[in-house]
């Protein structure tokens, strides 16, 4: 169904060579992180994250040059495609014009490689020989292992035990890229051994996988911890998606009324939408940026804007963000990348100030839209991306109802080839919608420590 007249490709030379830093254009400050406790067991202080990345999280320089080595690595698959979804429009019989930006066309299968490459580059420049991380379903671990292979770093991954068993393909992808990978809890760390002694089933969880990765940095001075998605520097790197899309929309002679992305920790959503949001913040654009989240993990639509821990271990710094509480247990949905209990402090602040909007959908309607997208556009969206697809379809149907030729841009953050078992469950009628009660959310929020005393200092 593809028609050359509906593809808006950029040449390699047209790829932007700078990232966009939205901090430069926000008329408000992002609240500072706070620490609740000090780690008194340590004897020494070791830096985990290169200052170059930390400066990118705090600085207000509007455009940040992408290093040449990073640009070269991006050229393996970037610029990514932007396509008008004419077959989907036809199937919906809508006057809306739908465009999608596709980030699944790289070996890791998702947008995450765009920041993994940049992060690994800065770690290498800082003299780090090996990076380590914890990964859940494996998207971040896959992207990091690919980036490490490109730049010649070793990669040590702790993958949540249950995913290690149930989702073998990303594990194989990591191994193909030379990563050393352990099922978490593992026998090689103190944290893993302790957990195994108490829990024979060894299913593990992401907080434990991260704790194992951090422990690995204390036993080897050339290893550093690298965590992905929600940090402002990670979103900065992902803005290349939105910057490319802006140029591509110009080629199409169109401009979006809506930009739609799914929301997990925030890098996909921020990366796609922030360059458009800039037009609204400093120009006269009326573009509406819409975040789509699962009804079972409704951080923006039903969470609270307050300080919380970034993971369930309760030892990380606290960030001011929309959260359901660090103890919130997301029901076992298939969009692993959207299960995080909170979202990035940057996206949160922007939502708090009313500059973006949020909707939440149940998984069955999401998968239905994912199947329609694959039938019409020839791409199986990852379950995460199917949320964005569903959001776009709802907007297109509303446009039909009102007979308005709205322009919708939707981000397809990754392909669903590693998630076929989820589609299988959907097709077999085995997926359930999950209704979270206000009480469940309240109980979880009530477990967050009160930090007002710290803020008054």
């Amino acid at each position, binding site marked *: 169904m593809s028609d050359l007249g509906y593809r808006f490709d950029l040449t390699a030379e047209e790829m932007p060579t700078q990232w966009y830093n939205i901090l430069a254009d926000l008329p408000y400050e992002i609240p500072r*992180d*706070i*620490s609740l*406790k*000090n*780690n*008194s067991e*340590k*004897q*020494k*202080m*070791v*830096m*985990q*994250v*290169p*200052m*170059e990345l*930390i*400066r990118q999280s*705090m600085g207000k320089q509007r455009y940040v040059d992408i290093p040449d080595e990073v640009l070269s690595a991006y050229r393996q698959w970037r610029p990514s495609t932007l396509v008008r979804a004419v077959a989907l429009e036809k199937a919906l019989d809508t006057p809306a014009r739908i465009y999608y930006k596709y980030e699944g066309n790289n070996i890791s299968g998702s947008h995450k490689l765009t920041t993994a490459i940049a992060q690994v580059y*800065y770690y290498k*420049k*800082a*003299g*780090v020989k090996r990076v380590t991380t914890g990964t859940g379903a494996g998207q971040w671990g896959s992207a990091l292992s690919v980036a490490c292979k490109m730049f010649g770093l070793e990669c040590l991954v702790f993958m949540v035990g249950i995913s290690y068993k149930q989702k073998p393909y990303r594990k194989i992808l990591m191994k193909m890229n030379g990563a050393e990978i352990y099922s978490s809890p593992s026998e090689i760390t103190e944290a893993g051994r302790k957990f195994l002694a108490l829990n024979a089933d060894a299913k593990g969880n992401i907080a434990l996988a991260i704790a194992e990765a951090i422990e690995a940095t204390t036993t080897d*001075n050339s290893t*550093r911890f690298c965590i992905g998605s929600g940090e402002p520097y990670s979103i900065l790197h992902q803005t290349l998606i939105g910057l490319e899309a802006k140029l591509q929309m110009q080629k199409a002679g169109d401009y979006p009324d809506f930009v739609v992305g799914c929301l997990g920790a925030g890098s996909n959503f921020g990366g796609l939408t922030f360059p458009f949001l800039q037009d609204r913040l400093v120009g006269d654009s009326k573009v509406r940026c819409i975040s789509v989240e699962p009804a079972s993990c409704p951080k923006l639509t039903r969470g609270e804007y307050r300080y919380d821990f970034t993971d369930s271990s309760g030892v990380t*710094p606290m960030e001011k963000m929309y959260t359901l509480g660090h103890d919130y247990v997301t029901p076992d949905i298939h969009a692993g990348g959207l299960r995080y209990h909170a979202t990035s402090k940057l996206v949160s602040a922007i939502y708090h100030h009313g500059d973006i909007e949020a909707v939440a959908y149940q998984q069955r309607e999401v998968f239905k839209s994912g199947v329609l997208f694959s039938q019409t556009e020839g791409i199986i969206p990852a379950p995460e991306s199917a949320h964005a697809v569903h959001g776009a379809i709802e907007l297109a149907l509303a446009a039909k109802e009102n007979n308005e030729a709205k322009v919708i841009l939707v981000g397809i953050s990754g392909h669903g080839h590693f998630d076929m078992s989820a589609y299988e469950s959907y097709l077999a009628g085995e997926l359930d919608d999950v209704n979270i009660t206000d009480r469940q959310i309240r109980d979880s929020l009530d477990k967050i420590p009160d930090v007002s005393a710290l803020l008054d*200092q």
Partner: protein
Amino acid sequence: MENTDLLRIVADILRSEAKAVSLTAEMSNDELLKVSLGSLDSLTFIHMVVALEERLSTQFDDEMLMGGNFSTVSDLVNYIGLSLEKEGSA
């Protein structure tokens, strides 16, 4: 810049950024140098490094910073001294 001047700047910033590290105005330079940084969490350490970069109008070298082990104030002062020296000769 003399290391004793640096020490005073580091001590100032420790007082404002790292309240968990107890420093008193009466401490001698030798006593300050021996103060442990082991109790700092990584976030406070980063805030301190950012504040030091601002105060000294410099950007520290990542390779040196990531390779360093900072047990005491003395380690940090030595590191900054070397970093400024390297910058000056670059």
